[in-house]
């Protein structure tokens, strides 16, 4: 303990005046490295301590390499080497100069071995070193790695560091560590209770574990009570963030439903026909993403930007094809249209099965969509879901603009309100039908691109969403985009909030039953069209 304190003192001194002993440390650092190659296991730790005390900039990477078991030296001249296994072949690098060298024979190199004691020392030394790293993230991570093992010396050191620290994340990590330290081993009960109060705002699992421990094992009843109160407060927060998490998943499901249903809302709203092949448009979009990635293997990060317009065009063209070849001949016979488009969906599924095999395909996620946004230790939002949520809203707004501001949108609305009158006014309803179908299908294709980032791409992809998207359209009210938006998010959130209570399957059953009952009450959906256009 005392030794560590001494070492820290010494090191801090070096830290504050780095230029004074520059040459001195370098030479002694080199000597120490030389000594490291000669020492046996028992003598290694003192040398490592001295190396740490030099404060040389390379120390961190040296320790890391040593901890990973990659540090070797060349027997001929005792030069340190790092040997890293890359895809099965060893890559040799001179440690200090960083130059890559030809692989050497096994007999020419010797490994600097470490045992468990050394590993422990190295991990905590790395933690200490990172505390002074110039990266705030590293500093914060270092503090968090010390949470449960903090001793008095390091605590003092942290308190010291806190004064110089300006980054808020790091500050809060340090506060947490210090509070945990004093909750555990402060001298006075009052200090302990104050620390526990501070901890009650924190969600880190380590803090909770400590509080559990205190609640059960603390000597002083006041401390135990404080711990109980703090735990209750934390539990409340955890439950709250649990709800936020569910809400996010619900919104995410809702955004997927929105992307799937919005195209359907247009085609169903305008033409009154149910396109059972709509789900297959999603599938085509997802497969387009897959193919685009196959075509540009080196540019996964950019492939999505190509895939989005490509999927729109592919699915849109298929939609126009279906409209021109089949649906237009079945005008005024919605039930027959339903059957014919169902047939088309079967053909498309089988086509994909024949071309791409019935197995699921995995579409790679670009880097910028992987990982998650950590809001606090119990709540993190994955970037892909977040991106898709935003993307769905952008698509929605874009579609809204098309419908409200462009000539096509005007025609589409006119035809959906009164087909005969629109025709009489000179609107080419045939063309509008085909374009509407193309637009609706194209948007489903874009939805498919988004879906490919969440699930595997397979021939049955569309089937899974078709009933749900009909439910959304029917629930929201036919021909009403805003209704579709509200319905998609309502159903998504309802589904995700029911899931933990009832299980996944029962949740979707309950939602289905709810919608069936809802249609009984309001057959025209949440936001029915009013006036004569509704008939």
């Amino acid at each position, binding site marked *: 303990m005392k030794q560590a304190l001494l070492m820290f003192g010494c090191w801090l001194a070096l830290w504050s005046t780095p230029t004074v002993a520059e040459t001195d440390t370098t030479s002694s650092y080199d000597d120490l490295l030389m000594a490291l190659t000669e020492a046996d296991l028992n003598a290694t730790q003192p040398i490592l301590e001295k190396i740490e005390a030099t404060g040389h900039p390379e120390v961190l990477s040296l320790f890391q390499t040593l901890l990973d078991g990659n540090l070797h030296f060349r027997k001929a001249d005792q030069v340190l080497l790092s040997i890293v296994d890359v895809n099965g072949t060893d890559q040799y690098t001179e440690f200090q100069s960083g130059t890559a060298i030809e692989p050497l024979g096994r007999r020419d190199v010797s490994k600097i071995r470490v045992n468990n004691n050394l590993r422990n020392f190295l991990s905590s030394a790395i933690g200490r070193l990172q505390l002074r790293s110039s990266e705030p993230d590293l500093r914060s991570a270092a503090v968090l790695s010390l949470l449960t093992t903090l001793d008095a010396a390091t605590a003092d050191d942290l308190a010291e560091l806190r004064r110089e620290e300006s980054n808020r994340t790091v500050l809060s990590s340090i506060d947490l560590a210090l509070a945990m330290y004093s909750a555990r081993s402060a001298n006075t009960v009052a200090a302990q209770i104050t620390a526990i109060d501070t901890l009650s705002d924190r969600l880190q699992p380590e803090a909770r574990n400590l509080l559990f421990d205190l609640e059960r094992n603390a000597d002083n009843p006041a401390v135990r009570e404080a711990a109980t109160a703090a735990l209750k407060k934390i539990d409340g927060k955890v439950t709250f963030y649990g709800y936020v998490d569910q809400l996010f998943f619900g919104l995410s499901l809702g955004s997927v439903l929105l992307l799937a249903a919005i195209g359907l809302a247009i085609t169903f709203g305008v033409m*009154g*026909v*149910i396109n059972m092949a709509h789900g297959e448009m999603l599938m085509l979009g997802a497969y387009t993403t897959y193919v685009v990635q196959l075509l540009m293997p080196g540019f996964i990060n950019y492939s999505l930007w190509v895939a989005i317009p490509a999927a729109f065009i592919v699915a849109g063209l298929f939609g126009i094809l279906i409209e021109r070849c*089949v649906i237009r*001949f*079945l005008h005024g*016979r*919605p*039930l*027959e*249209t*339903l*059957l*014919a488009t*169902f*047939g*088309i*969906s*079967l*053909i498309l*599924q*089988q*086509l994909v*099965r*024949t071309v791409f095999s019935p197995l699921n395909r995995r579409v790679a996620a670009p880097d910028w969509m992987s990982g998650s946004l950590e809001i606090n230790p119990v709540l993190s939002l994955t970037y892909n879901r977040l991106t898709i949520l935003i993307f769905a809203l952008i698509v929605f707004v874009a579609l809204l603009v098309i419908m409200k501001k462009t000539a096509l949108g005007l025609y589409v609305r006119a035809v959906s309100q009164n087909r005969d009158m629109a025709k009489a006014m000179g609107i080419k309803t045939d063309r509008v039908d085909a374009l509407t179908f193309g637009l609706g299908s194209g948007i489903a294709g874009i939805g498919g691109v988004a879906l490919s980032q969440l699930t595997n791409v397979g021939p049955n992809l569309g089937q899974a969403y078709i*009933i749900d998207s*009909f*439910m959304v359209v*029917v629930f929201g009210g036919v021909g009403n985009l805003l209704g579709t938006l509200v319905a998609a998010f309502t159903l998504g959130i309802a589904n995700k909030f029911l899931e933990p209570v009832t299980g996944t*399957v*029962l949740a*979707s*059953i309950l939602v*289905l*039953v709810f*919608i*069936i*009952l809802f*249609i*009984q*009450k309001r*057959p025209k959906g949440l936001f029915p069209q009013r006036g004569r256009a509704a008939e």
Partner: protein
Amino acid sequence: MSLLTTFMSRRNSLGSPVLPFVTILMTLTVLAAIGNLWIPADSALHVSTYTITLLGKYLSFAMLALAVDIVWGYCGILSLGHGAFFALGGYAMGMYLMRQIGSRGVYGDPILPDFMVFLDWDVLPWYWLGMDQFWFAMLMVLLVPGLLAFVFGWLAFHSRVTGVYLSIITQALTYALMLAFFRNEMGFGGNNGLTDFKDLLGFSLQADTTRVALLLCTAGLLAAIFMFSHWVLKSRFGKVIEAIRDGEPRVRFLGYRTDRYKVALFVYSAMIAGIAGALYVPQVGIINPGEFAPLNSIEIVVWVAVGGRGTLYGAVIGALLVNYAKTRFTALMPDGWLFMLGALFVLVTLFLPKGLAGVYGQLITSWKRGRNRDEPPQRNQEATS
């Protein structure tokens, strides 16, 4: 007035399809039965047990198609969920057959079916009680689909849900049931469903005689239901039903409670579907949640569409033809069948809106018209020559 009488007479001249239908159906099945039981196996006229089972399966599908035709062809209710009623009837029968296994199961439990032992259940769920009685199980075959159809139909027709909306919610209904039946907790064998049946009313299901008896039973019931449905649909009730199909608001304004008519018809149709399911299960030997799949229900609709709706016999012919084609095709090239089925949907709706029965009707009419027209021109020709 004269127009009306000619119309009536033409209708009569086409004749009621009941007698020829029943005659052909029963003759063929009896011949098949004889071919299986009494003609030796090496004879060319021998009918294999496999064929008997296949025929029995087709006929239960035909009954199911009949059920769909009754609501779709005569009342314009396109149900995409009739597979659910079929499967419920099948499950009721399957539960009876499960209870008949008794202690001959893998785990040898005298009361609990194997899957319940496997899931560590120690008592029979309440809805399995009484299912060891044949009469009770048969009652359930009728009541469960009937009750579901009643509740669903009452809710839907009472609030005037029609057209594609109705189709979609029937599909959602069968989809929801499928999800539910896939769950082990439901107590219907989960994913695997009910299978490994041993005997029915004490007769082994593996025996040729039982299979033939089941086929005859299916054919007999199909004939009976056909005749009864024909009678119902030609009755006053049937006329109202057809009128509802052609103009529901008008019928309503005339003072009929159209929703009650529709509910009654829907329940009747669901019960037929239930019977079909109950006949299907012992012949096929398994019932699982896959029967609830929306695709199955929609396939039934295509049988009816191919055969021609609104004729009853068209549905039966369509079911037999499409299923025969399916058996043939899946054996020849398994991947091709879905292409075929999809194309069938598209082509039939585009080019054969009245199905094969419609084509037949057109041929007959044009032949008759041709004969009527042929005579006067001949006279004219004679006159000119």
